[in-house]
């Protein structure tokens, strides 16, 4: 099946407007804005079965339909370009290589949701993405594609690039909205949901970059074309990321529903230097570790759910045999401890505590009681906080305990004295 998302990824810099128009960018947006009705666009996206590529895989068209049809005051589209899930580096390709694809999708989505302003929240570290995007926005404003009279339709479509400042949690959509408003990136309690009370207190839809990049193609080529790729429940192509110990790490476009084995072997050339694989992460850090025996899992949100994990962002990370699983786990537990926003007690303390325990196992100082304790930490925090961050840190931890329990057991140390630290001989 032909690729459509990644055709420009081989270039060294962003494709500028003149060349982009030559490749058909903006033609679909122009046709849509001039000839269609917003609800028709929503229906197309709904019928196409486009699901959100940010990791939650919520149907985009349904999300769009939550927005007010007769808005009293502004509604906003917010693009989540806070790509922070370790193992994920796809959105960056779109922004750095083909920014007009994203902007065209934004124009269509704004039209469909009756939003006049779109904020693109680019993670702070992605300076190259931000510059490419800002350049493209300026080109579009100059050419009348964006602005007060977008594409000559009399409609206003403004795109503002916003820059984060280093916080993984801002990928959570309500944390992102707080960050956009100049606040700490702490997730908001829901309800109210963003479609009711979002950015700056207005109805808002937050979509991932890759999700929006699919939109112009759906409207250009139609629902049957889109549904001809991928799986029944998750149509279309996805940008698989493959990193870690593989021969050719990178972003590979392919239909949803490929096996992890095919992605790793056919796209990325298999494990580096013919080594053995210890484990792989199917869709970004929070999806946890799977053993090589699970390589035939299907990269589809619903199939991976059945495996007790998630498709996440589709960012596969291959852990080679030379890397100890506990070392890999510690990298992630330390990461999640570093990145929890800390507002909810179970998550703040649970992420830190579990990282400390993993650290003890890593040093060969684990204890048999720690298995129950780690499970209690996950049980006491999952579904017990404002957002799903505990599910994220429990991803690698829980999967390691299920699939690699032996690694823990081999690292139980001699029974530690009963007196905890701090006890001294001064009596």
């Amino acid at each position, binding site marked *: 099946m032909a690729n459509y998302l990644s055709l420009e990824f081989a270039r060294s810099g962003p494709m500028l407007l003149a060349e982009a128009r030559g490749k058909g960018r903006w033609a679909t947006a122009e046709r849509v804005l001039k000839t269609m009705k917003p609800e028709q666009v929503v229906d197309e996206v709904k019928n196409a079965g486009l699901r959100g590529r940010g990791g939650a895989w919520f149907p985009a068209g349904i999300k769009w339909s939550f927005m007010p049809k007769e808005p009293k005051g502004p509604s906003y589209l917010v693009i989540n370009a806070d790509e922070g899930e370790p193992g994920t580096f796809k959105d960056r390709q779109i922004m750095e290589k083909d920014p007009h694809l994203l902007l065209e999708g934004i124009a269509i989505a704004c039209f469909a949701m009756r939003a006049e302003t779109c904020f693109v929240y680019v993670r*702070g570290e*992605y300076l190259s993405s931000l510059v490419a995007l800002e350049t493209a926005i300026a080109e579009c404003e100059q050419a009348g594609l964006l602005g007060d009279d977008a594409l000559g339709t009399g409609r206003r479509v403004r795109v503002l690039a916003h820059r984060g400042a280093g*916080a993984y949690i801002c990928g959570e959509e309500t944390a992102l909205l707080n960050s956009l408003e100049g606040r700490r990136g702490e997730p908001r309690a829901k309800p109210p949901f963003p479609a009711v009370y979002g950015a700056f207190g207005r109805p808002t839809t937050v979509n991932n970059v890759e999700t929006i990049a699919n939109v112009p193609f759906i409207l250009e080529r139609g629902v049957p074309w889109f549904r001809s790729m991928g799986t029944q429940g998750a149509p279309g192509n996805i940008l698989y990321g493959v*990193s870690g110990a593989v021969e050719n*790490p990178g972003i590979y476009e392919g239909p949803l529903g490929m096996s992890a084995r095919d992605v790793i072997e056919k796209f990325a050339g298999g494990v580096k230097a013919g080594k053995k694989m210890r484990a792989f992460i199917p869709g970004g850090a929070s999806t946890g570790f799977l053993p090589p025996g699970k390589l035939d899992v299907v990269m589809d949100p619903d199939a991976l759910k059945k495996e007790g994990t998630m498709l996440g962002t589709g960012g596969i990370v291959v852990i080679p045999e030379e890397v100890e699983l506990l070392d890999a786990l510690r*990298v992630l537990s330390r990461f999640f401890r570093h990145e929890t926003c800390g507002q909810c007690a179970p998550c703040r303390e649970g992420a830190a505590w579990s990282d400390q325990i993993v650290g003890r196992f890593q040093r060969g100082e684990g204890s048999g009681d720690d298995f129950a304790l780690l499970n209690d930490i996950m049980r006491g925090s999952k579904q017990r906080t404002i957002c799903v961050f505990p599910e994220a840190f429990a991803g690698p931890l829980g999967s390691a305990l299920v699939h690699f329990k032996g690694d823990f057991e081999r690292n139980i140390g001699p029974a530690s004295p009963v007196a905890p630290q701090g006890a001294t001989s001064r009596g």
Partner: protein
Amino acid sequence: MSGASARPGQPGEDATPPEPLLRELEALAARYPTRRGGLLLMLHRLQEWRGWIAPADMRRCGTLTGISAAEVFSVVSFYTMFRTRPGARFPIGICRNIACFVQGSEHVTRALSEKLGCEPGGMTADGRFSLQEVECLGSCGSGPCLEIDSRYFENVDAGKAGRIVDALARSDGDATDAIEHAAKAAR
């Protein structure tokens, strides 16, 4: 503070932003539905100018956005990228997350640490370099990844990292130019 003088040409702690920057800050506040929305971009701009975010910068942002200086501080302290102390001329960040780790980022860190004579989290005595392990930079397909002032250096190994540092150690001009130059030198 020795670090403050480590960036030649960078304004001191008490310096007032120049007029064009002040106008830019105002424009950023005015760009959002609420003035506070401009806060992150304002802080980025002030940090680019001063090299770090001084208490006076937080107060100024508070005044411009209508929140208290303490609230600005709260925001600043939440985000990893904001520095509230003067930093090195070339702050080197090395990704320590999973993809880079698997590809040997620890070796790069160790090599740089030895070469610079400073531990991760520290700064060289002359204030020219600092070394910091950072979380995922979104460069997993081209790791290990090293970052200096938001400029990425990808597919780095100990040798390449050493060449980058050598190039930067020789430079005396504008830091951004020096970083671009080092990027070429490392290829």
